């Protein structure tokens, strides 16, 4: 009996914690449908009538859909590039014996541990020198060299590729590049997918790099756009509109999460076991 009560208490506590994780988002959704003065005077979980009105204020201030499109224009190419080139690099490190293989592997581990802020100023200086300020190129191209992802895929490669398979393909006269594209990439795709979800979310949510690199408001990615709420005074007077703007920025990720939570969780678990 005591056992059952204890177990119920555990479940209640766990559920309370889960609710605590969701509650701020629920408040956000509800408040997004209420007027500023309603939010200021009372608290409720019943949606209000002011969604359209709030939307008018938000859309008069900035175009969130443009921000989303901009974020996609950065996050999608960056994710594809890092998935493709990281698997290419990982595969080469596992399969081919060439000078510098070991050195490259060591450098990859070292750069995984180096904090990104360390190179922020040099990075900005480089981008200025290359005349690429206010362009998406410095947000996308560096994704080709992602040490952490190569590190993970390397281990995935070691576990999932059998030398006999490569020998057989070579016997059939397939070239190395063809082998990689026709045999290896499909074999590695679960691992690539796992890593790509993380890359996509990381890029979608990235704030500091686009903040320092982008100047023109019509190029702002979603986080930079949302952050520009800070400097606007008229919109801060209307809390409902702020909640709505934040809600719109959050919803795409909630949708992705609803469909991919399993993969997302397994990608973090993978990160945990790798050491």
């Amino acid at each position, binding site marked *: 009996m005591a056992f059952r009560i204890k177990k119920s208490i555990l479940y209640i506590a766990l559920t309370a914690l889960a609710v605590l994780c969701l509650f701020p*988002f629920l408040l956000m959704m509800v408040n997004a449908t209420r007027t500023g003065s309603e939010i200021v005077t009372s608290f409720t979980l019943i949606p209000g009538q002011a969604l359209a009105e709030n939307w008018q204020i938000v859309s008069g201030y900035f175009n969130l859909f443009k921000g989303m499109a901009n974020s996609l224009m950065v996050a999608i190419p960056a994710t594809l590039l890092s998935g493709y080139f990281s698997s290419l690099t990982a595969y080469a490190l596992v399969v081919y014996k060439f000078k510098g293989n070991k050195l*490259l592997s060591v450098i990859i581990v070292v750069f995984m541990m180096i904090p990104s*802020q360390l190179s922020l100023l*040099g990075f900005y200086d480089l981008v200025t020198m290359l005349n690429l300020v206010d362009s998406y190129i410095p947000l996308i191209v560096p994704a080709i060299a992602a040490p952490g992802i190569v590190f993970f895929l390397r281990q995935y490669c070691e576990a999932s590729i059998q030398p006999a398979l490569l020998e057989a393909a070579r016997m059939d006269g397939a070239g*190395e590049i063809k082998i990689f594209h026709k045999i290896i990439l499909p074999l590695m795709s679960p691992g690539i997918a796992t890593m790509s979800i993380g890359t996509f979310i990381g890029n979608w949510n990235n704030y500091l790099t686009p903040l320092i690199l982008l100047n023109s408001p019509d190029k702002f990615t979603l986080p930079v756009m949302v952050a520009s709420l800070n400097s606007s005074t008229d919109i801060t007077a209307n809390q409902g509109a702020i*909640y709505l703007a*934040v809600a719109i920025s*959050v919803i795409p990720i909630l949708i992705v999460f609803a469909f991919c939570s*399993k993969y997302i969780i397994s990608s973090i678990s993978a990160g945990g076991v790798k*050491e």
Partner: protein
Amino acid sequence: MASQKAVKSKKRDINKMGYLFVAPFVIVFLIFNLYPVLRTLYLSFTDYQGFGDPVFVGLQNYERVLTDKFFWRDLWNTIKIWGVNIVLQLGLAFLLTIIFSDIKYKVRGLSIYRALFYLPNLIAATSVAFLFKTLLDWKYGTINQILTGAGIMGSPVDWLGSTATAPYVISVIGAWMWFGNSFIMLMAGVQGISKDYFEAAAIDGAGRWKVFLKITLPLLKPILLYVGITSLIGGLQMFDLPFLMCGGTIGNPSGSTQTVVMYLYKFGFETNQVGFASAIAYTLFVIILVVSVIQFKVMYGKNKNEGR
């Protein structure tokens, strides 16, 4: 013999393909990873202002960093915010790991709880910052309304306006965002431990706490270290949350939430003292490195002694 040689030379040719395959990575790595790291190091020894030619000034910037009382204040702020955050975050993650790995209670629904606990992690820090900034508003915020309405507090608290609460509010929000991540990693570690250990312990009649202290905890060490070091690297670079919630690089109220990276950002991108900002970056890096090594030594050094 001849054919063997041919096979061998062909194999060497195949291995040469490795260069082609890693070439894109290496080129981009040299330009966008290695160069910025070295360039920042170089700039930290100059008086660079963001334009013109950098003039070499030796260790002047480092001297300035080490004697700058605001740098030390910000380092302390950062450690304070991170410290409270990591205790809450890892404590909660640990507690959850114990609950979900308990053999007696066999709590179900791990995948659902895990997903829900992880959710706050996915949301951009900018959105989280604005959400909480609005919810925590002194006069009009929903959180004060709930707390005063339920009679938990007599009068509304100015969460982000008081030095006594603002840094810790950031810590708590950080813990709320990241505990799910730590939990998933720790749980993955526990699931990686062979069931044999637990069964053997059960046969020997070991109690729950004994199992936890003697089996689970030691075997979780590598993952704990990994979580600890990644959290340290991330935590000492804390920027988004305090920057967006506490009035930009000022770190309101009265600089109590100004972190080292906010200080770096202020000089690097607002007042263009790039050389000085670069020295801040490298000083922070050295601190992170030293603390990581200490963390490593504390966790593994002791283990070695036990082995003797």
